[in-house]
């Protein structure tokens, strides 16, 4: 009788061990119990992210330089022009027929907030510089705050708070006040930065 109990206990032991081994195999194998096709494909894509293009007043041609014409020391220069439209088609401040110096075109897939950045004007040529942003259809821009881009002609980064929608344009007006120095010329770079 004792023998029988011992043998049966041994067999039970083996059975349990085998059962546990099978359980482990199943666990490792990660058996999938999906019995029906209950999945569907999803698709998504993002639009391209590109910089804001600085283009001419009418044509979508890239502007390389913006030039402020010569003026008397301490004078306010409000008729800059770009190399695409040339000096013959400079910026105009007017209550009826205002025209920007350049247009900003958003070729990115989404709206972009505009940040303007300038480097310090060389040779102390500038006392200050200002900007205005508007819709290109607006022709009533008469004034520009002369110091909102740089209050002292030194480098500055200004978040304008203006946003340009995808494929839309903004009109950019610039104005500078020359320093009291006579007979000098200087340069600076303007950067139009976009932020999502």
């Amino acid at each position: 009788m004792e023998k029988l109990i011992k043998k049966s206990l041994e067999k039970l032991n083996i059975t349990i061990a085998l059962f546990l081994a099978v359980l482990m195999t199943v666990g490792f194998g990660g058996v999938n119990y999906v019995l029906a096709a209950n999945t569907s494909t999803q698709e998504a894509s993002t639009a391209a992210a590109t910089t804001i293009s600085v283009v001419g007043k009418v044509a979508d041609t890239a502007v390389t330089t913006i030039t402020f014409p010569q003026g008397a020391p301490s004078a306010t220069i409000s008729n800059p022009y770009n190399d695409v439209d040339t000096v013959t088609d400079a910026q105009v401040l007017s209550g009826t027929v205002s025209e920007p110096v350049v247009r900003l075109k958003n070729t990115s897939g989404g709206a972009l907030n505009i940040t303007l950045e300038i480097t310090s004007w060389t040779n102390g040529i500038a006392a200050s510089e200002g900007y205005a942003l508007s819709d290109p259809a607006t022709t009533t821009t008469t004034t520009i705050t002369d110091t909102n881009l740089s209050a002292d002609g030194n480098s500055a980064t200004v978040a304008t708070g203006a946003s340009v929608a995808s494929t839309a344009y903004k009109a950019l007006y610039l104005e500078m006040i020359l320093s009291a120095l006579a007979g000098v010329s200087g340069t600076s770079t303007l950067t139009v930065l976009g932020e999502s």
Partner: protein
Amino acid sequence: MIFSSNRKIYFKSILLSAFLFGFLFTISSTALATSVNRMSLVNLESYPGKTTKAEIILEGTDPGDRTGFWYTHYKKIDGDSEKMDITSWITIEPKDFTIKEGEKQVFAVEIKIPRNAEPGLWGATSEEAGKEGHSDERRTYLIFKDAPAGGNVYSGLLIPISVKILPSINPLTPIINFIKQNIMVIVLSIIIIVMGIFFLKNKKRSIENKKRILENKKISLENKKRRKVN
């Protein structure tokens, strides 16, 4: 008659020329910018003393060459903690670039975390900073800007960057994680091994018992033989 047909041909050729000219103009004015493959590099996870790496790709879309460079920028806001300006941790290689239309250039961004940096979010005030319209939560930026050759009018993009610094790595963490992930398998294995040991011990005992019985039988048989001889 001949005069009228010539006129038609002349008119058609003008129309065709105008169409082709317009088409050319449209093509040349599609894009005058540079594309980037990601608008943010936020919530990058790292540890004190470690270096985190990322890649960023620019693609030229301007028909002409554009020359530019990368730099970092901190948008200072009053009351910011020291965690907001991480510009000194960031390097990007190559820094300067000239990109042609259709060309793709890969740039390697490295963020070296100082050993004494406390755990938490650095470079932005929120983990949401990468989402569109969350500009107020961004502080440190990676910026690229470029311009047509010889130009003084640049355009670029502000790419927010932030790092989530995690507490220093415990050397036992991978082992603990492995145990946590495989707890069932480990427990079952232990049970099987213990049962196996018991099974082997029992078998040994039963073999020994059998041997003893056999020896006893042998002894009893020998005793019987001896008795018979006597």
